[in-house]
């Protein structure tokens, strides 16, 4: 089995807020991330798939195909958007880096599996160069 990773970037704004909590509690837990005017990041997304190498093509997956899937399923929805206000899953889910990683997994799992040959192995989302979250479908 080979692990193959494709990287992509998107820029988006967000804020952290739990509507079940008081303003004060949101400030205590989320600090500056609770500013409801939002703030933004340049996110780096790493999509890792795993599978056998096709003897015909020498590919695990066609990287151009994977790029197109990431663009259609993720970047077209997330890039240059306000995650809280414009991306459906974050209407009820706080757009932390952890939840972004899980949400991107959910967006990509079906199309990757449907293509046959490869499985989604890992989603890694960098919020900054020093902060990242991973989801491995566990």
């Amino acid at each position, binding site marked *: 089995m080979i692990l193959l990773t494709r990287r992509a970037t998107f820029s988006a704004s967000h804020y*952290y807020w739990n509507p079940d909590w008081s303003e004060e509690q949101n400030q205590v837990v989320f600090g500056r991330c609770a500013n409801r005017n939002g703030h933004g990041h340049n996110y780096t997304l790493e999509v890792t798939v795993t599978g056998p190498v096709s003897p015909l093509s020498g590919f695990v997956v066609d990287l151009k195909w994977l790029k197109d899937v990431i663009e259609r399923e993720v970047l077209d929805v997330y890039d240059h958007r306000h995650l809280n206000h414009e991306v459906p899953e974050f209407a009820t889910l*706080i757009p*932390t880096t952890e939840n972004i990683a*899980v949400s991107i997994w959910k967006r990509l799992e079906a199309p990757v599996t449907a293509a046959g040959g490869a499985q989604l192995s890992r989603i890694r989302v960098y919020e900054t160069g*020093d902060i990242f*979250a991973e989801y491995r479908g*566990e």
Partner: protein
Amino acid sequence: MKAYFTRAYTISASHRLHTDSLSADENRTTFGKCNNPHGHGHNYRIEVTVGGQIDPATGMVINMATLDAVVHQQVVARFDHMNLNLDPLFANQVSTTENLSIAIFNLLQPALEPAILEKVRIEETENNFFEYSGAEH
């Protein structure tokens, strides 16, 4: 749903690779430039990975403020702008980055509980890095 959260921290420290159990010549042969008697230093980049369920109330595996406080107390305050060889942890072992990774993992693991420390990864330079995931791995 289990997710992993990683945050990187930077410390600058000096060290010298040397062991009293080898002769001066053997130390020079084994450790090369790293055995320079006056020591040398690095900007170490330490990645700390915590794993666990995402708390539905916060969307987080661990609050980064909590992680920052523990790492600063246990690691940054202790090692940043210090000579690693003078720390008691390295009184009886060479201050390689392998040993530093294990030492930092063992400092952080109990301090982070109930959060679960998954891995410590240290870049000594951008071309050298070391990982430790605990004794059971």
